[in-house]
């Protein structure tokens, strides 16, 4: 998923969207996935990374990523969104 390049995320998971002034809070896994997306990683790469780093299976990450991406889109944080 392509994420807006100008989003600011600090080390505590605070996210600021300068285009809209909206701010958000991410938990550590949410923050990690967003960072991977910002680095241009694909869904498959993100899933691979998470299963390597965390005690979790591929199916669960895939389901959670599906939901997380819906929320990123809802909050208009994708690059194609205003």
């Amino acid at each position, binding site marked *: 998923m392509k994420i807006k390049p100008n989003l600011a995320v600090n080390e505590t998971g605070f996210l600021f969207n300068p285009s809209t002034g909206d701010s*958000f*809070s*991410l938990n550590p896994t949410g923050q990690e*996935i967003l960072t991977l997306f910002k680095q241009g990683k694909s869904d498959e790469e993100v899933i691979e990374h998470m299963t390597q780093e965390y*005690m979790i299976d591929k199916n*669960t990450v895939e389901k*959670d990523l599906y939901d997380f991406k819906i929320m990123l889109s809802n909050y208009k944080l994708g690059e194609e969104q205003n």
Partner: protein
Amino acid sequence: MAQKKQYERPIIKPLNTGLMNKFGTKTEYAPVKMIDGAYVKDLIKEYGSPLFVLSERKIRENIRNAKRAFETRYPKVQFAWSYKTNYLNAVCNIFHQEGSWGEVVSIFEYKKAIKNGVPPEKILFNGPDKTDDDLTIAINNNSCIHIDHLDELYRVIELAGELHKKPRVAIRVNMDTGIYPMWDRFGFNYENGQAWDAINKIIASGKLDLVGLHAHIGTFMLSAKAYGVAASKLADLALSVKRMFGIKLTYIDLGGGFASKNTLKGSFQIGADVTPEISDYAEEISTALLNAGFPTEDLPYLYLETGRALVDDAGFLLGTVISNKRLSDGRRATIMDFGVNILFTSFWYDHKISPAQDFSHHTEESVLYGPLCMNIDVVRENVTLPPLMAGDQVVVHYVGAYNITQSMQFISTRPAVVLVDMKGTPHVIKRKETIEDVELGEKIPDYLEKFEL
């Protein structure tokens, strides 16, 4: 290879800079992993999910605290366990071991109390539905009958004649105690003189032994003062009986209705912050009775039928997440393996729910659904919890009152109930229901035995 990290479902939550909630309720992310020394995980592994768990330690602590609160303020106090609140025999017997009599509202409950070994003269028989057969049993057993309405009063007088016995009776009195809504469906009204008329009829009959007065002024009463008003009015009636007829009543029964720590739906503040302590009720009632004008040697016994406040916080419901989903409006929904069929009180409480495993401090709002294929099956309309995943376990608090007695066998069988004893050892006090239990009373006519599809 490096140790893998603990996974938590990714969440993102918008931060709003609106007005703060001045009540600032605490977010429930602190896990509850044990109940009185028994691990939640082990309990679910051994007895299945969902599972009701009762704490014997908490039940005994509650009744001892209540007795202490009243007995340090008033010299003659007797508790009677309200069977309808939770009539699992093991629970009733804990209360009986602590000295409580039995308070029943049907012949079904009456028979349970007898089976449990409660001496019949220590059973208070309440409720509007007592048949002639029921009354006959109670009269022959010398139990105390709390008369609810005029039809019952006349039947008891007739039965007393037929049985050549003098039944011990009290009348139930309803009254204005300054709370809304006023409960006036049980018993005879104080203000309009019905209660006094009933007393006159009892005494004029010469066939009944009027031993007490009873009131049940409401349920989940958030005002202790209302009990002071009720105690004053009952004391006034008792003193009038003494003055007019020279009869000293044995007891005044203030019924039940003390609130538990649950949060009522629509309440801004959490229940634990607003419900009176048992000592608040004790203070109001004792003060009213002591100041009513009884000579010290004639002080009536104070009977109490407290149920909810003594057992609610001793009950827990353990459950497991079935699934998460996202609703069309973006709200998170969590589907649990317990629903309104077994958690009946979720219709009027916002139950406190804790996760049973560690999470970070991040939380999200969610609707909590039960497993029933019914739209009404909503356990919490909105609850803030950590990012639960399928298979995660939760603990629902304050479920000891009215859930086991009111739970419905609907769509699925009911769960087991476990009592954790004083040493932390769990005991099954009701096994999980089976299909055979449910079909026990069913019969299929011969012509419906077979079919072809």
